[in-house]
Structure formats: C-alpha cells, structure tokens
C-alpha cells in the first residue's frame, strides 16, 4: 500500500478517511468510558486541532452547535456547514472545562432521551491531575482516569443533569491530543469519595 497516498488522505480533518478513523476512536472512548484515546501522528499537521476533528466528524447541517465560550473560529463555522444555536437548545455544546457552566443544556425527554446534548469539553490534561473514579457500562468494575482543568462545578452540574436516567447529557473531554468520553450512564466519584 502506498503510504504517501495514505498520509495525504488522512492529513485533513475534512477527509472522509480521517473522520472514519477518528470516529472509531470516539466510539471506543464511549464504549469504554475513561479510556484515553490518542490522535495518531499522521493526522497531526499544523492545521489540526482535536476540537476541529471532533466537530468535523460529528456535526453538519443536520444538527445545531452552541459555542458560549467562543472556541470555534469563523472559518470553521463556514466549513462545518452547521447551525448555531443557544446552549439550551443545541445538540452539541463546546465549552471550557475551567469555566463553570452558566447554562442548562437539553436533557432530552422520556420519549426522546437521545435529544440530550453532547458536551464537548476542553480540559488541560487527560492522564494528569485529579483522579476521577468511574463505574458503569463499559467498565469492568472500576476505572480511574486523571484529569486537570476540569472545574468541580462541571462534575456537580453533571450529576444534577444526569440524575434522572434516561434524561441526561453525554460528554467528550479533550486536550491537545487525546479524548475521553463520559456517557450519561457513567457514575463519577472523586478519590475523596464525593
């Protein structure tokens, strides 16, 4: 196989082959909450960012995206072809983990729990920082993942939002090269047992 062609095909976040590979990582992340998925070197050129990769893979004209912390630039908005919306109504919300959430995301309904938002949250480091202890589907008994740059307010709010299954929000945490997923079914406690 021609590896030059392959790396060209993968080099852009807009390339179908890159989105397929990245989606598989996201799917693995959601299947095994707490497992850190890393971007492969081929996809890291100078225009690459994990956030752009997530948005290019998951969003388009059929969904809505909220950007309360102004993390998406204008060029990306036009390339994504997606629709801007407020955090209360958007299917996807991009936010900073170090700023406490000032909005109430959609939690879905009993009939349509899938309408609960997906929150794409930037943190400082995955694999370093405060340990989070995870339990639930996708985890054999318990899984620990370290995370820095995730404010306590987020964990508090998440617990409130996800208090009545099947309603809830699902999260993707990202840093400069990795992602971790937290479906609404994952129970999170901090090491102190809170």
């Amino acid at each position, binding site marked *: *196989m021609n590896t030059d062609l*392959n790396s060209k095909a993968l080099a852009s976040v807009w390339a179908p082959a890159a989105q397929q590979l990245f*989606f598989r990582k996201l*799917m693995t992340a959601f299947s*095994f909450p707490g497992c850190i998925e890393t971007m492969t070197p081929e996809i890291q050129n100078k225009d690459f960012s994990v956030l752009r990769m997530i948005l290019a893979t998951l969003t388009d004209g059929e969904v809505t995206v909220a950007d309360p912390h102004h993390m998406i630039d204008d060029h990306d908005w036009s390339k994504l072809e997606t629709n801007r919306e407020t955090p209360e109504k958007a299917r996807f919300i991009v936010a900073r983990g170090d700023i406490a959430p000032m909005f109430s995301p959609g939690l879905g*309904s009993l009939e349509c729990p899938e309408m609960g938002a997906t929150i794409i949250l930037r943190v400082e480091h995955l694999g370093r920082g405060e340990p989070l202890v995870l339990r639930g589907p996708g985890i054999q008994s318990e899984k620990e993942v370290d995370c820095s740059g995730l404010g306590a307010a987020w964990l508090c709010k998440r617990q409130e939002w996800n208090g009545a*299954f*099947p309603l809830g929000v699902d999260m993707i945490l990202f840093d400069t090269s990795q992602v971790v997923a937290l479906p609404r079914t994952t129970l999170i406690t901090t090491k102190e047992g809170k």
Partner: protein
Amino acid sequence: MNPYYELPQDEAGYSFGFLDEYAKREVRRNILKAICIPGYQTPYASREMPMGRGFGTGGLQLTLSLVGRGDTLKVIDQGADDSVNAVNLRHFLELTCPGVDTTEQTQEATLIQSRHRIPERQLTNAQVLVLQVPYPDPLVVVEPSESRRKIMHGEGDYSRLLTKLYEDIVRFDEITISHRYPTRINGHYVLDPSPIPRFDIPKLNQSSALTLFGAGREKKIYAVPPYTNAEPLVFDDIAFRTEDFTDEQGVRRSCHRCGATDSFLDEFNRDDGVRIYQCSDSDYCNQRIAVHMLSAGEGAL
C-alpha cells in the same frame, strides 16, 4: 426531455462505503447516543440500500459507517460465512470498501456483521459485533402505538410485557418465546436482541465487545455497551431456558463434523433419511476440525 442527453458516467460512480458522508455522519451520531443510552432504540433516517429491506440493510448501514482501511470484516448469516445472504453482503462490502480485508475466522475480525447468531468464540474488546434486526421493539406485541411505547420504555414500565409472558406460562407451563427473547439492559431498557436463539442471549451479558443493532426498515439503532448487564426477562420461579440439545437418553448431542457439545446445532435430514446435527457456527466447527487434524497429525508423528 433532451434527446442528446448522455448518462453521466462519472456521476454514476459510488463513494467509499456506498453511503455519502452525511448519511454516515448521521449514523455515527446515533451510534454514540445508542451507546450512551443502553438498549434504547435511537431513530435514524435509514437509507435504501441495494439489497431489500429484510436482507440486513440496517446492519449494513452500521457496518458501512464504521468500516475503513485497516479493518477486517466477517459476515455471517445463521452462523455460516457461506450462507447466500452473507456471501451477498460480503461481496457488496468488498466492492464498495476497497482496502478492507474479509475473513471467516472470528478471532481475525475487527468488525463482525451477523444475522441471527452470535459467534460461539468469545469476542474481545477490540472487536465490534453488528446484529441485523427485523423488529426492534419488544413492546409491539402489547402496544401498537409507537408514541405510547416510547413512554413505556422511558419509564422502564414493562408490566404489560411481563403479563404477556405470564399468560404463556399459564397456558403452556413454559415461556414459548423461542428467539428474539426480551432482554433488559443495564437494569432499564428492554430490547429485542434480534432473532438470535436463546442460546446466544448469555453472550450479550458483560461481553468484552460492543454489540450494535441495526433495523433498516424500522429505522432504529440500539446498543449493548461492553461490560453491561443483559438479563433475559424471567420470573423468580420460571428459569430462563436455552435450547435443549439432549437426546432421548438425556445425553447432550454433538456436532457430527467436529464433535462439539457446547455449540448451537443445526438439525437436518440427510439424503438417506438420517437426522444429523452440525455446528451452526461454521468457523467454530472448521477451526475445531483443523485443531483436531493438527493434533492427530502430531500424534501420528
């Protein structure tokens, strides 16, 4: 109509994986939500595929949205790689996904699309199983209205379904559901596990692999995440019974080809009228024979 209009040859070309990127993205979004809400039937705008509804278009759309170079695909129907439907789907995937390998060996596959069986060999956390579903909703037998069913599912209220099962027991002393046995996932949603036999239901429970379900005609995707409880609905005093392969003497039948006594067996009559039993999972059977021949060969040396 313009009489000089030529068929645009270049337009007629298909993209990798047949589906356009928007269709794949929509399926992918719904896969993630399905994993986050285990057992919930996520609606999606199922596309028409070049094979008929009922032939696995739901499972196929999942596979086409997942597969890429580097994947190794296994396709089975009734447990067999050589069954006509499996052959057809595999051929389609080979045509539309150049660069994707196919295999019969369960352990070599990264992605397995299956109709009506889960492979005998235990799957790993590096594998994904896609099951083809004709009827996604176990509540259809007790409630014709979809909007009312969705509320029942949301509330986890399956009392009417349990009543129906109980009526079976009163009439027949047995739960008569053979395949598609309603199964509760993670203590909440009850799903239809697709027409897999009861024999395969325990494989869903705490599996290392993600199991995805695709209903093309009914336009639903649902999932059982890895390491998740999948419990068939039962009553305290009526056990969940898998298919019985014991003979009149109470001995568990074996496969006439490989001798296995732990696999689901197909039953059929040979030309000479003798009834025989054979592993439904053809790869499981073939690998057992290969191992046996290898060790027989070594013994002979």
